[in-house]
């Protein structure tokens, strides 16, 4: 019955995943209103976690929690924008190729495949160097335009299979225009898939931004989890024993990524019913006749 649902309701994985994602997103939205100015250097430096500074302070006396909250905002902005750009591009390349077929398809998918095997970071690095000053938007943009190929491939194959569905033919026979068919008939059925692709693109972009920051090519002037790790590393947080500065941003990225993956996992199960796994019902107590180990 779950054909139209993007998220299945109750599976431990999806609930956990969703809870993590929602919590972190809320944290990013709400927490900055309650924390200190993340660039307030009046606190003592390298304070371990305490009542006033739940996650301690940095070398410059910045409150780590405040940084983490603003960093969450920064990272999410980068992630969401990059993912949105990637999704739009992959829609154009994927769905258009899949629906159009023929030579259009051949050429577009060739382009997609090429983009896919060209390793992203070197390309991003080269483009990032080209940019004069890197705002958070620009970094997001660069990450977006270099990371769409993977989803384009998936969307293309899906669009191809949807295109041959009879309901597309039926819409044509009813006299619908191609654009409307794409938009109204095909797109909605790609929603779960799009959602899944969006979420993976999101975490990839956040990771990408972190990597860029570490190389000194990140968004200048903004706070993200990536710049936090980089600052912590540059400020010798580890050797100063300031784990509270170094560990949280990395952990946030990982946990957020895990949350998104779990949600994706559940979406996968909606898209592909074969993945729905049923736990072995508790039949052990029954007589061996009752078909025990299968």
């Amino acid at each position, binding site marked *: 019955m779950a054909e139209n649902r993007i998220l299945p309701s109750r599976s431990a994985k999806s609930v956990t995943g969703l809870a993590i994602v929602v919590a972190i997103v809320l944290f990013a939205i709400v927490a900055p209103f309650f924390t200190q100015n993340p660039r307030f250097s009046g606190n003592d430096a390298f304070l371990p976690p305490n009542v006033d500074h739940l996650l301690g302070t940095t070398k410059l006396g910045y409150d780590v929690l405040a940084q983490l909250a603003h960093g969450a905002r920064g990272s999410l902005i980068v992630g969401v924008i990059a993912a949105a750009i990637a999704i739009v591009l992959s829609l154009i390349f994927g769905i258009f190729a899949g629906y159009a077929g023929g030579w259009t398809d051949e050429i577009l998918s060739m382009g997609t495949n090429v983009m896919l095997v060209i390793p992203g970071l070197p390309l991003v690095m080269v483009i990032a160097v080209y940019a004069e000053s890197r705002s958070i938007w620009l970094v997001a943009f660069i990450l977006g335009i270099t990371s769409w190929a993977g989803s384009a491939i998936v969307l293309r194959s899906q669009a191809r299979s949807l295109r041959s569905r009879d309901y597309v033919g039926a819409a044509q026979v009813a006299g619908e225009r191609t654009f409307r068919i794409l938009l109204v008939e095909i797109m909605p059925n790609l929603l779960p898939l799009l959602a899944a692709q969006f979420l993976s693109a999101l975490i990839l972009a956040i990771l990408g931004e972190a990597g860029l920051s570490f190389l000194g090519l990140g968004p200048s002037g903004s706070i993200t989890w990536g710049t936090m790790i980089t600052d912590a590393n*540059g400020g010798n947080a580890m050797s100063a024993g300031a784990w509270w500065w170094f560990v949280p941003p990395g952990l946030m990225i990982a946990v957020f990524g895990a949350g998104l993956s779990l949600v994706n996992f559940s979406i996968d199960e909606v898209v592909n019913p074969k993945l729905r796994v049923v736990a072995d019902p508790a039949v052990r107590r029954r007589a061996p006749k009752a078909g025990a180990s299968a």
Partner: protein
Amino acid sequence: SGTGEEQDGAAAPTLNVWAGSQTPITANFNPFAPTVLHGALGPVYETLFLYNKAGGGDPVPMLGETFEWNEDGTVLTVTVRQGVEWSDGEAFTVDDVVYSFTNEITKSTYLESAEATDDTTVVLTYSEPQFTNEFAILGGAWMLPEHVWSEKSVEEATTWANETPVGTGPYTVDTVSEASYTLVANESYWQEGKPAVKSVRYLGIDANASAEDLLKSGDLDWAAMFVPDPEGIAAAGGPAGYVNTPQDPTVLYTCANAELGCAGPQTDVAVRQALNLALDRGTINEKAFVGLTGTISPTFALLGRDDQWIAPDVDKQSPQAADVDAATAVLEAAGYAKGADGIYAKDGAPVELELVSVEGWTDYNDAAKLIEEQAAAAGIKVTATTVTWQEFSDNRQSGNFQLIMGGVIGTSMADPFQIYRDWFSGEYTQPVGTQLEAGEWNFTRYSNPVVDAAVATAAAASDEQAKMAAYTEIQHEISRDLPYIPLVINATQTFYNDAEFTGWPTEDDLYAFPPSWGAVSAGYILANLEPVE
């Protein structure tokens, strides 16, 4: 040369030096190549004299024994050391000295002639007075073996990697790999019995953090780098020797001259003055530089060393605490008014500045963030961003910036003249958009006829009084105009292993500038070291 020397490894320990973040290392011992390895400059090639940037004092004779200027500073007579051999066994002669000054690569435009008047004397004749260039001539020109270099055309000479350099220094090159290069003692070195340390390895390590870890574990014996917690190195088991020699000013370059194309609020001297007053240098030193930097003088004379050159009626030190009221008063007097967002503005243009520092120079990055905060308190919006070194360099060269956090190269002699001439005079700059020429350092595009005239006067002045009068004029101008807003005298921390090697320059005996990357001085120090038995 092979690796056969390893047998004596146990007896004579190898000294491990941090060669900087420059992996992969590629063999290049050509002192004229931009990518030359540090080991060439001092340990292999030497100059006529050694100038002690750290302690001042008389130049130390190296390949030259004595020198003498004529009255007007256009003729310099140098007596050359005898009995020195090149590392390939050839004798070092006055002809080599002459060659070193007259070859196509290094010949300066104002050198009229260089002649060996006998086997021990070389006379250099210039078209203009060169008193103030003494360091560049005697302490900065590398002595080259004519029999090797004269075979190279100019083109070759600049692109030549010179993998087995022939020099007069205490060391010769043994091996080079992408991770390290090793120097071994030059057994025929002219200083009897030196060097006592037979083998030196320079290691390329990319991240400061890694180098710091290796210092702590005692793997590195000599490294100069910024470490926030210098005591921690020895405490963790690393080398216990540590010396801090603040020498080079750290400043905010402002693109100051609207006439040469600078744009932005910082072209208004009031904004620069306000920013100068708004800075809390104490906090910057305390937090970003962990209290390791020195106090800067707005005259750019090095406090302590150059005190005699500071005019009595200028501020000796830049203000150490923020004076927000004074800062806002300056702005208001200049017609700025505070906007709703707390930022001053004039004619609708808010005082918003972009401050650039080099990515990965964490102390600078931190200082920039602090400045952002401090300026905001005075109603000036500064946005700190980071760029790669290369971008920073490009911006600086072309004048394409508002504020840059950067260094000024401190003078090697106890005299600020070189800074005044190279960094402040209008002849040493170019319009915005044009790259500075070689030797021009006036990145701020500052141009002030009073300063220019005073610099010319000082250059030709043969007595101290005349020079001082010119300097006073310069100092008045620059401490008012603030094209470079002085911040601190940057820390130069050097860590050395005095448990295994002795003879290092120390706080008490700064006989040479101590960091491992110091040109000439590094070779001089290495030659003076001795392994502990």
